[in-house]
């Protein structure tokens, strides 16, 4: 056990005694009357050499992006040790999922990584569809790509806005949130919800895009790179910005892989790992896009990688708009997809399907599947195990920001306290996903 480290601070002020009365300091002089310089008063600061301080950052702290708690041991202003605590938002999503049918789990996926809810919906149904052995229609595949890339843009916009605020820049936040509002309006027109979209179903989507929606998307594709250019002009060559981010929180590529980092975190370190390209889904291999890779693995590279990724998402969106085929959105399988409402109330067969789907839910064959997608935070995987009933035996979320955050002691130790805020913000954590 270490020695007692309570710091005794003397409560006194120069010129006052311990009771707060002024101290009369007699002027001294030599016998012949010449004044003598007084000795400097002894320092009132206690010697703090070797004294370490315990600081509790969070759980209620605006820069922890939710309810993250970091217990920091400080030597002066340098972080000696960091012990993270999570779980304040834990609500047992995985346990609840074992008591829900597959389509009933989709609303839970909105609420874990709530900045990427549409992407989570798509990721979940991709996993469920592999479990069911279903292939979606071509139109649905392209619509899902649009959903994923739009939610990637939302998530990165929120990230860049909050990262700026954490460091002290306010204006880019406003630019970013304005564009985010455009995307949310498009989601609202598409599925009727903004944040908790629940936009997909096993075997298709909740809704086809409404008339005129593609024009709004094209408008967004035209204007959005301008916003990125504005944010870029404000930040990328800004002396304060680079001073706060360059060389902070460096992760080597070997460490980044070994710590299981994914997404922009691992790409900023120089590892070109992108699930979209290396383990493709949704025909991503047919889209033309680049995987931006950093060189130094610091917070600045993470910023550059995410900014470039937004532009690459715009490229993918352009191609998706061009290739969007006509046709049905949902698979033609009455065991999976609800019949039209007018059929369910007028045809006996459709009514039976409706009843069976609502009351029992679709049943996949016994088996298991792990489907990972490239979420804005990294590799998001859904691992589902079925025993042949309509509810999964096990529904596991592989949360990317959970694994990314687990490396935070390695990232912050040795840095200044102010850099902890920068590094924590650069990871892009969403506590709803970490705690689940």
């Amino acid at each position, binding site marked *: *056990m*270490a020695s*007692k*480290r*309570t710091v005794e601070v003397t409560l006194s002020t120069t010129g006052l005694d311990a009771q707060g009365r002024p101290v009369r300091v007699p002027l001294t002089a030599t016998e012949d009357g010449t004044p003598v310089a007084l000795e400097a008063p002894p320092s009132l600061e206690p010697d703090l050499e070797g004294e*370490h301080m*315990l600081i509790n950052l969070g759980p209620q702290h605006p820069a922890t992006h939710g309810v993250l708690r970091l*217990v920091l*041991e400080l030597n002066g202003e340098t972080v000696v*040790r960091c*012990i993270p*605590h*999570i*779980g304040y938002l834990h609500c047992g999503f*995985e*346990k609840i999922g074992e008591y829900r049918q597959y389509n009933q789990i989709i609303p839970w996926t909105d609420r874990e990584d709530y900045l990427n809810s549409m992407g989570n919906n798509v990721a979940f149904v991709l996993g469920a569809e*592999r*479990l069911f*052995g279903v292939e979606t229609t071509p139109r649905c595949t392209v619509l899902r790509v649009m959903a994923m890339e739009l939610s990637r843009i939302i998530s990165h916009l929120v990230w860049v806005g909050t990262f700026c605020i954490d460091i002290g820049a306010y204006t880019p936040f406003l630019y970013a949130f304005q564009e985010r509002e455009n995307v949310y309006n498009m989601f609202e027109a598409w599925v009727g919800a903004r944040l908790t979209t629940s936009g997909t179903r096993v075997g298709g989507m909740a809704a086809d895009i409404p008339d005129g929606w593609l024009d709004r998307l094209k408008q967004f594709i035209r204007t959005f790179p301008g916003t990125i250019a504005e944010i870029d002009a404000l930040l990328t060559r800004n002396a304060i910005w680079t001073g706060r981010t360059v060389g902070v929180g460096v992760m080597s*590529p070997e*460490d980044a*892989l*070994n*710590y*299981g*980092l994914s997404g922009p975190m691992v790409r900023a370190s*120089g*590892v070109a790992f992108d699930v979209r*390209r*290396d*383990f*493709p889904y*949704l025909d*991503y*291999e047919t889209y033309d896009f680049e995987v931006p*890779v950093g*060189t*130094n*693995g610091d917070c600045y590279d993470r910023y550059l990688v995410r900014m470039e990724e937004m532009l690459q998402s715009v490229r993918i969106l352009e191609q998706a708009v061009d290739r969007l085929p006509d046709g049905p959105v949902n698979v033609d399988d009455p065991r999976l997809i609800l019949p039209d409402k007018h059929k369910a109330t007028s045809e006996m067969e459709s009514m039976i399907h409706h009843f069976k789907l609502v009351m029992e839910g679709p049943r996949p*064959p016994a*088996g*298991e*599947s*792990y489907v*990972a997608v490239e979420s804005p935070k990294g590799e998001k*995987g859904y*691992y589902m*195990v079925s*025993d042949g009933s309509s509810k999964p*035996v*096990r529904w*596991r979320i*592989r949360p990317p920001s*959970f694994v990314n*955050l*687990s*490396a935070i002691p*390695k990232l912050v130790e040795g840095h200044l306290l102010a850099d902890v805020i920068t590094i924590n913000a650069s990871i892009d954590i969403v506590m709803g996903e970490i*705690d*689940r």
Partner: protein
Amino acid sequence: MSNAFPIVYSGSALTPETPAPTTPKQVPHHGGPENPSAAALRARFPDAVQRVVVMWGETTVYVSGGSLLDIVRWLHDDPGQSYEYLSDVTAVEYRDLDRPIEVVWHLRSLAWRRFLRLKVEIQKGTPLEVASVWPVYKGADWLERECYDMFGIRFDGHPDLRRLLLWEQYKEGYPLRKDFPLRGRFSRSEQLRQALAALPESRYSMEELSIVDAFDELPADMRRRLRDGERTGE
């Protein structure tokens, strides 16, 4: 800015003629091409590999728990495998309570662009213990802690196996086990009583309390529990 690190490209071990990966289509339920690492594992560890299952295009290798760490280390280090990325560590308990609990590792080889699932079956009634892969993958730290937190599986060799999402004094057991009711074991009033009776110090770990020597001021029972590393639950 100088290029301080070499960029690690995925697929680097493949020849340039290897076709680019594509979205899996028409995947059969059972069978299909097996991950080549499964055959390599069977050749290298004939006694440890129990069976190999290919389901929905994903290869699962069931291995014995005793040689898990050797297998994982070999998969990580061998240049012919180079599984340098640990995606996930989790566990599965089936509704059929006689079936063993399965601990699941999802590994990725970026160089070879492969995906492999390892499983260790732990029979019911035997201690839920398995080797930690933390010496090979540092990313297993929180994943294993969560698995311990939710299933009560002990990972031997993990440096700091504490509860992660739940608090350390949580007494209701392991929530993702099938014998754990959805609403929790305790009543709401009991949960509230425990929450209100908790000491603020109980939210710190022993490691943190030792930094400021607040440990000595704790009640004797909490000190004993923290010092002995006693696990709550069960």
